[in-house]
């Protein structure tokens, strides 16, 4: 399989008033095409910083990240990000939000309408095109965010604890919706979370990041498409236990 994202000797040190704070300490990682990879770890392990660097929103102290062999130096539409906080634009309606990226890139009206229609349907918001975000529930806003980023057709998807603040049923539905779209689009996805079950349920591989180092990578054996009962099977419990043993310390 082709390597899509290559991380080499990545160091990140934040300069603070209380001295240097080393967040990432020499990361190496290959992410393959069409792969769904989760990154889990205790809070403060550097997972969000790692994702920000790949997004191009944060600089590296040393080392480099390559996408398709080219070094990442800044943000680009090729790497779409779904943030934990609501980042959809409150002054745009649902439809205008989903069009946003395409509009920026000057895509033709026809393609724009086509793609917007398609993703509105995929996230089941076709009846809410003219609504403003303030009129939507938390779960709906997240679906708009997902559709907006997917509609922009990035080659890599970065998700930073996107379902962090949501209640369990909403979260489960959104995870299933994410997998649904992912299976249709097959985009390389890096998914940062502190929820072990979520990580296992969604991904091919789970990367465990502790104190700025990758301490293990676990392959998830479940076949796709994945259904809810995976969450309760014995295999899942064993994986959860293994992951928990890393994070607990």
């Amino acid at each position, binding site marked *: 399989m082709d390597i899509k994202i290559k991380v080499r000797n990545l160091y990140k040190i934040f300069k603070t008033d209380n001295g240097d704070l080393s967040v990432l300490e020499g990361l190496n990682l290959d992410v393959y095409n069409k792969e769904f990879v989760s990154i889990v770890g205790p809070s403060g392990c550097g997972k969000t910083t790692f994702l920000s660097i790949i997004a191009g929103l944060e600089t590296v102290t040393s080392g480099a990240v390559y996408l398709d062999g080219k070094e990442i130096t800044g943000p680009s539409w090729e790497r779409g990000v779904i943030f934990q906080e609501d980042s959809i634009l409150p002054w745009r309606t649902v439809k205008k939000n989903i069009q946003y990226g395409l509009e920026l*890139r000057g895509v033709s009206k026809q393609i724009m309408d086509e793609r917007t229609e398609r993703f509105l349907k995929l996230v089941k918001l076709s009846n809410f095109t003219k609504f403003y975000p303030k009129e939507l529930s938390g779960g709906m806003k997240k679906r708009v965010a997902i559709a*907006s980023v997917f509609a922009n057709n990035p080659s890599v998807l970065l998700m930073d604890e996107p379902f962090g603040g949501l209640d369990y049923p909403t979260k489960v539905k959104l995870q299933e919706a994410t997998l649904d779209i992912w299976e249709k689009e097959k985009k390389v996805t890096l998914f940062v979370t502190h929820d072990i079950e979520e990580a296992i349920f969604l991904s091919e591989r789970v990367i465990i990041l502790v104190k700025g180092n990758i301490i293990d990578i676990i392959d998830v054996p479940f076949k796709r498409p994945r259904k809810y009962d995976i969450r309760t099977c014995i295999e899942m419990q064993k994986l959860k236990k293994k992951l928990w043993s890393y994070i607990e310390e």
Partner: protein
Amino acid sequence: MISIRKRSFNYKKYNGVIGLLIIWEIIATIFEINNPETSHIIFPSLHYIVAHSIPGFATFWGMQSLIFGAKYSYLEAFKVLLLHSGITILRVLSGLIVGVLLGSGIGLLMGSVRFIRNLIEWPLQFARMIPPLALIPLFLVWFGGREIGIFIYITFSIFVMIVVNTIQAIKNVPHKYIKYAYTMGANKYQLYRTIIIPAIIPEITGGIRVAVGVSWAIGLAGEYLAAQSGLGRLMILSEQFTYTGRMFVIAVLFMFYNVIINNLVILFSNYVTRWQEKYSPVQ
């Protein structure tokens, strides 16, 4: 969802106003019976204002009627008030609109081009510290009582207010939207067009609402001191001839115009910020 407004007419709100007017009329009438000579100068009754002060504005039609007097007439008075109201409103609105447009435009330019910001940020901060009224004598020296002087004076004062407001608003734009726009492929120009400008609109419209009040105040001050026309000028004339009733009439007119313009600005700002969640702590 939260801001459900009652549209039905609530007459109870006006009880206080009506009560106040009745008390005024009673006190003024008692005063009038005891001091028939001076009561209309010190404390005119409402019926005196309607019967004498309003038609009396006819004597303010040009120099000749001012010196030799003119017949009291509601029609002539109406013409006088219409003319001078028009002049004042035109001055205030033109200064306000040009000031707001210039202020937000230059503010945005300062926010996006570092060179321009460095050049004018400090001079502006100093200019902001000068109370606008302190500048009237200076403008009088420069422009005399000419229309352009009053216009520049109002425009300048509003401009300084709105520029500072705009720069602050740009600083307050949540960082998450800026990051989001860049990861969606925005360049710097697109960032301003699609993120910064819509995000600062609520704060700017708040600034405009304050600016409306300020522009009335400084417009009036300009007319007191420098102009030969406008409601402010009529106010000064009334004061010089001790027409106290007419001063009340002008004050009520000001109130009336201010309410109209304020409501128009509120309608406008509610429309441009319709996407925003609104919480009203006052029921």
